[in-house]
């Protein structure tokens, strides 16, 4: 007997969001089916990988994470260029580590200068990731939104504590916001409602569900994203119909299992290949759950993930 795949009845669709401007602008979202379920729907825009760039020289990176970048790590502009020119980055996430009040705590203007320089140096979309300190980000990201006028950048993480400050400037300068909530469907929805009430255009919102790395809470992010997608696509929950970004690189690369060498723990195998796979497996898992953008570090992990996206969207 001929067998038909039981189809899910989708009633909703993820909104399309454009990042950047001009020829290298990228559109994400737009799917009307579960991730890679193309036998029953469309994914007009394939999921993308964004390369992370730090605004200050990372001090605690593994040798094998430093390797692909070498001396550009102390120069965010050269670093971003290298990602685009050498590794074919389609978008850059600039992580504003130097602004963290629990770290270097650089002043807003000093940090914004670097953001502007990086924005000027690349033609691919720029996403600017703050410190996750509500107060500091409130100041910092609103200035970023202003300073990057006309570039259609994304700024975040935007929380329920600072959405007014950042949201207002994002509206004013027509930037995208990355709405961040702590691994919870209802809180994600609530923040999106607040942003809507504030007047943020629905084509200008991306969800950050808060990302746990492999072995460190990945399953929580995974299931929250599946629930987000289920609500958005099958329960007509308009306030969850936004693309999702997962800032996974810092989560994966700070773990013990990406730091231990083979000499320290022979059973864990070659440290470089293991770390690359820990990053790639985290990304793959989140893509299956519904990520539209995965933020990654190592060019080899990126290649593996792009290859898989290509096969799944073939």
């Amino acid at each position, binding site marked *: *007997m*001929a*067998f038909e*795949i*039981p189809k*899910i009845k989708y009633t909703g669709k993820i909104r399309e969001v454009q990042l950047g401007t001009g020829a290298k602008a990228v559109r994400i979202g737009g799917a009307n089916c579960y991730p*890679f*379920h*193309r*036998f029953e729907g469309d994914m007009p825009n394939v999921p993308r990988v964004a390369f992370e760039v730090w605004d200050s020289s990372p001090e*605690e990176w593994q040798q094998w994470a430093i390797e692909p970048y070498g001396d550009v790590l102390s120069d965010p502009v050269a670093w971003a260029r290298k990602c685009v020119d050498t590794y074919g980055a389609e978008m850059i996430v600039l992580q504003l580590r130097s602004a963290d009040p*629990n*770290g270097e705590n650089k002043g807003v203007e000093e940090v914004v200068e670097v953001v502007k320089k990086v924005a000027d140096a690349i033609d691919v979309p720029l996403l600017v990731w703050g410190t996750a300190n509500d107060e500091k980000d409130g100041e910092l990201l609103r200035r970023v939104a202003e300073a990057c006028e006309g570039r259609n950048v994304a700024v975040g993480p935007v929380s329920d504590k600072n959405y007014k400050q950042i949201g207002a400037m994002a509206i004013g300068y027509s930037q995208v916001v990355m709405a961040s909530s702590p691994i919870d469907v209802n809180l994600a929805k609530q923040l999106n409602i607040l942003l809507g009430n504030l007047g943020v255009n629905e084509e200008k919102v991306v969800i950050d569900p808060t990302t*746990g790395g*492999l*072995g*460190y*809470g*990945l*399953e*929580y992010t*995974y*299931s929250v994203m*599946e*629930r987000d997608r*289920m609500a958005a696509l099958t329960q007509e929950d308009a306030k969850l119909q936004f693309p999702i970004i997962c800032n996974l690189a810092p989560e994966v690369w*700070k*773990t*013990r*299992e990406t*730091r231990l060498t*083979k000499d320290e723990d*022979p*059973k*864990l*195998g*070659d*440290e470089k*290949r*293991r770390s*690359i*796979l*820990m990053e*790639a*497996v985290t990304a*793959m*898992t989140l893509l*299956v*759950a519904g990520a539209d953008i995965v933020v990654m570090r190592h060019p*080899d992990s990126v290649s*593996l*993930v792009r*290859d*898989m996206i290509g*096969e*799944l*969207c*073939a």
Partner: protein
Amino acid sequence: MALTGIQILKLLPKTNCGECKFPTCLAFAMALAAGKTELDLCPHVSADAKAQLSDASAPPIRQVSIGVDDYGVKIGGETVLFRHEKTFFNKPGIAVLITDAMDDGEVERRLTALEHFQYERVGVTMKPEMAAIKFTGNKDRFMGLVKSALVRPCAVILMCGEAPVMKEALDIVRDKKPLIYGATPDNYEAFGALAKDYGVPLAVVGRGFDEVAALTEKLTAMGLKDLVIDTSTREVRGAFTDQVAIRRAALITKFKPLGFPTITFPCEMTDDPMKETLIASLFVAKYAGIIVLSDLTGETLFPLLLQRLNIYTDPQRPMTTKEGIYPINNPDDNSPVLVTCNFSLTYFIVSGEIENSRVPSWLCIMDTEGLSVMTAWAAGKFVGDLVGSFIKKSGVEEKVKHRSLIIPGYAAAILGDLEEELQGWKIMIGPREAAHLPAYLKTWNS
């Protein structure tokens, strides 16, 4: 159409004889309704009731056991499409391929790897469980491999399309209850007979799910129940689609011919071991029953086992870490003492950050029934008097000379009560986020 527990109860003898190992007929009926047990366990049910119940009572996806005792692997038996809807029950078995074309050294390395690559995490041992032994034409060597696998601590999959060779192999290894792979449209009668005679599970190999479904119907008609299915799709997109289709067919349309666990072969889908790991991770998330890998190395296996642990963690029950004092970075009697809850994720993140700080420290983990700091505090399980009495009886007072205790920033509210409970101790409020621990610890002074 699924029946409710009460509807099923009406068809049972209602004698509460307990021979099904359930205390009452009602308990048995509820378990049947949940697809967690089988009607065959009731010796007194009438033939008429059996007929009525058999359709409704069988789990939508058959649970199949491969191997015996400690090395048994249970697959299938799943009841949901998404883990958040309930949980996934049986994690996919991970197998390593061994063929009769490999030399002795290679075979030995692979069998040893199966035992060697075991990792402890949250009180669970993560490990690959199965050897897939494949016949490629050299019968004597194949039998030799089967013999060496017999004494190893693993479950076995025998891969061979020739019934007489398979029979010989089964004579050697039948007590291990191997999965035999597999029945095709050409040989299914002989393989079905073998599986029946030897009481072993059988893999069904067709081109696409139509052919597989046709085969499982024939084999089911022969009286076979323990089937595992392979649609033979070896490209990523198609294989992913097949996995989704099979799971949905079983759960949504209750299409019995596809109500079986699947076997997948990332080892036949790429030559790159890194890519193979990613393909395998896709199958962990989406529905494989068995995943056969080309080789086992620490760097490719560990990330996969960790992902499998994550995806198959029961979302209804938080993972916990054992209560106790954990030394990190070789602490001494001057090192800082920190206390937090026993939610595993908290433990991993906090201990990881302490490790990153390189500051020698004592981390006291208190049993909060797997609740995180804020939830435990709100539930009255991480409050001043409880934390205080835990610290007193923990024995940490013998580990350090100072009397300073760092509590999580999110539990700052317990400060007063804790000071009262822990006379002579100085209570310090640590950062709210674990990520800020390294900076905090580097400037810590008792």
